[in-house]
């Protein structure tokens, strides 16, 4: 399937594209970099007395809260040559500098720290740990490395508490986004979550949706899948579900300035979704009367996607982007230290020449207004 021309048809419209390559110039903005939380004990200094005692109590026996979506030893979770001899990949600032920020000549990198705090079912536990993670991020990473920016992580189990945390933490302009997982308790467009979107819109913070699941529901309509590879494949379904949920529920009718960034989604599933929901909307639009324009246009206006990974094979990437109908919506990302590419060739092959600078610099700046404030 991978790009082999079919006997009946040939690809038309040759588009000049770039090979898989190093970045052509410095100053790229990395919209998905993963510093690792060494463990829950790292959060103890940032918890109040009640939660510090509680965490000490439940951490007896080296209990951890890693995200099930990223098993620490799984190939995807860290590139082999980025795994340190001890500790977690992405856990050391010196390594993040020497393996990502320096070689890729990054101007800014947005830190998305993935940990179980976002997936806790207990709303109070989730809120306490997310708050501590945000303060840990500011003190341990942002204060020490001026190229870093970060996402505010939140638990969605108590949306009002999440909104409070966003308002508190957003006073620090180095936090440029709100981060949530692609699969959780409910589809993300649900009105229960709107307090989060209200504050995010007001503070010009995009909503970042990152691959990962609370495992609250099965990945498929026929139950939980057997293999990690299947789980990761199904993250694309999770992103598709959320994309539709956001506009079907009317989030953008209510919050017209809100932007959503789909992070580590694979990208290539998007055109088929745009075609399907745009056609369906013509047929069943009376169900969702707040949608006033064609869903494909809503998606191009409100959604952005990071380009690691990019599932389409090199020969077909330009065709896929042509189907999406816009190169405004792609954002550069390394996805460091996840294993999406080898060597220094961080730019996926097949991107149209004319789009590279937009993807590396212009689109991220337009998506994250706070990056322009320094």
């Amino acid at each position, binding site marked *: *399937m991978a790009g082999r021309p079919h006997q009946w048809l040939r690809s038309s419209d040759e588009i000049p594209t770039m090979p898989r390559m190093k970045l052509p110039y410095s100053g790229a903005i990395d919209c998905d970099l993963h510093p690792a939380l060494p463990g829950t004990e790292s959060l103890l200094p940032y918890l109040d007395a009640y939660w510090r005692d509680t965490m000490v109590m439940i951490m007896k026996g080296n209990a951890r809260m890693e995200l099930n979506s990223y098993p620490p030893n799984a190939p995807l979770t860290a590139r082999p040559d980025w795994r340190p001899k001890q500790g977690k990949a992405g856990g050391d600032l010196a390594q993040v500098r020497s393996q990502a920020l320096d070689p890729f000549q990054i101007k800014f990198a947005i830190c998305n720290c993935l940990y179980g705090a976002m997936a806790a079912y207990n709303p109070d536990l989730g809120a306490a740990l997310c708050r501590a993670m945000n303060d840990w991020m500011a003190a341990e990473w942002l204060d020490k490395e001026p190229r870093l920016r970060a996402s505010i992580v939140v638990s969605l189990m108590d949306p009002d508490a999440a909104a409070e945390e966003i308002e508190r933490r957003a006073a620090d302009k180095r936090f440029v986004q709100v981060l949530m997982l692609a699969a959780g308790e409910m589809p993300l467009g649900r009105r229960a979550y709107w307090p989060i979107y209200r504050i995010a819109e007001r503070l010009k913070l995009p909503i970042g949706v990152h691959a990962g699941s609370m495992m609250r529901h099965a990945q498929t309509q026929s139950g939980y899948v057997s293999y990690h590879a299947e789980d990761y494949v199904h993250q694309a379904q999770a992103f598709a579900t959320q994309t539709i949920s956001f506009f079907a529920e009317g989030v953008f009718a209510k919050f017209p300035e809100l932007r959503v960034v789909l992070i580590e989604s694979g990208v290539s599933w998007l055109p088929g979704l745009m075609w399907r929901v745009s056609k369906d909307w013509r047929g069943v639009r009376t169900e969702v009367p707040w949608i006033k324009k064609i869903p*494909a246009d809503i998606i191009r206006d409100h959604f952005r996607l990071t380009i690691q990974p990019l599932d389409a094979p090199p020969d077909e990437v330009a065709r896929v982007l042509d189907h999406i109908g816009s190169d405004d919506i792609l954002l550069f990302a390394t996805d460091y230290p996840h294993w999406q590419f080898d060597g220094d060739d961080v730019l996926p092959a097949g991107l149209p020449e004319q789009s590279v600078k937009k993807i590396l610099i212009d689109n991220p700046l337009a998506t994250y207004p706070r990056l322009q404030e320094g």
Partner: protein
Amino acid sequence: MADTSQPYVSQARVNHRGIVDCDIHPVTSKPGELSQFMPKRWADIFNTYGARVAQPFIGMVPYPRMTAGNGSRLDAFPPTGGAPGSDLTFMRQQLLDPLGIEYGVLQPLSIGSQTFDQGLGAAICSASNEWQMAMWTGPEPRLKASLCVTQDDPDAAVAEIARHAGNPQFVQVSIPPRANEPLGRKRYWPIYRAAAERNLPIALHSAAYGPGANSGSGWMSYYIEEHYAFAHSLQSVVTSMVMEGVFEEIPSLRVICVEGGFAWVPALGWRLDRAWERNRDELAHVKRPPSEYMRKHFWYTTQPMEEPEHPKHLLDTIRWIGGDRLMFSTDYPHWDFDDPRQAFKVRLDDELDQAIFRNNAKAVFGLE
């Protein structure tokens, strides 16, 4: 920016060489029509309790279609009364004759495969099979039947397949893409073996309800969301069957994805190949790249037709999937019916046109 050129007229239709429609929905015309084909015990239970399934309503799908006709074409209500798809004479007049349908494959969407009481479910499936022969494929030889089975009682499913062995009126075994477990799991393999041994493909038609939530984030709110999730249920079938190694065990198995569209197929193949390459250790039983299994074992019916903003983009999609994998379908009498004269908004060359409208399906179903 849509293409404003004239709708494309299929060569298969122009040449009057006949079309194979892989998705036609027959329904009963009156209460008791199905239960007359059940043993008394199950008929009594069916008539007393109904077919209890995982959805809140009786008499309405969980996501009402919010269109005139609640999911059916308004002009498909038969003049004699009854529901759309319940009157063979009217189906001939509206579908088979004017559109040149040489063969039509029935998809009765048997509720037996989703019924909580699996004994009742097996009885409903058996009755659906008898009913198709008595009411449809017997009187109308252009129509072919689906052998409905209850996938979560594999023993009963295998017995039902054996019961109709060699009956040429059945051209496929039908199960829903929403089951109690991912459909590549070993518990379902006896069904696949039984079908493959009889050279019958497995057809999975999108289902309006099932035992699990329709997304990894729980239940969605609107039909416009659910309708897209139909494609997800089929993506999960492809993923599970390939990654569980079904085709290494049953190499002659053929699978048809019905009413899930097809624009998602290339992206799924690319993503599966990447994941397989990365996780070779946990997938040692999957010998080849997943897209190769897709290219060999899966077919996709065309309705609901994909409509790119630029119609020519559809040719990329077909190239990526393979023109030999697609089989035309109308979904008669539902609201998003595809008319073979207008379904494709882009010109297909003659060979591809013939393949999609008739030859692929004839080969898959062994129709002459």
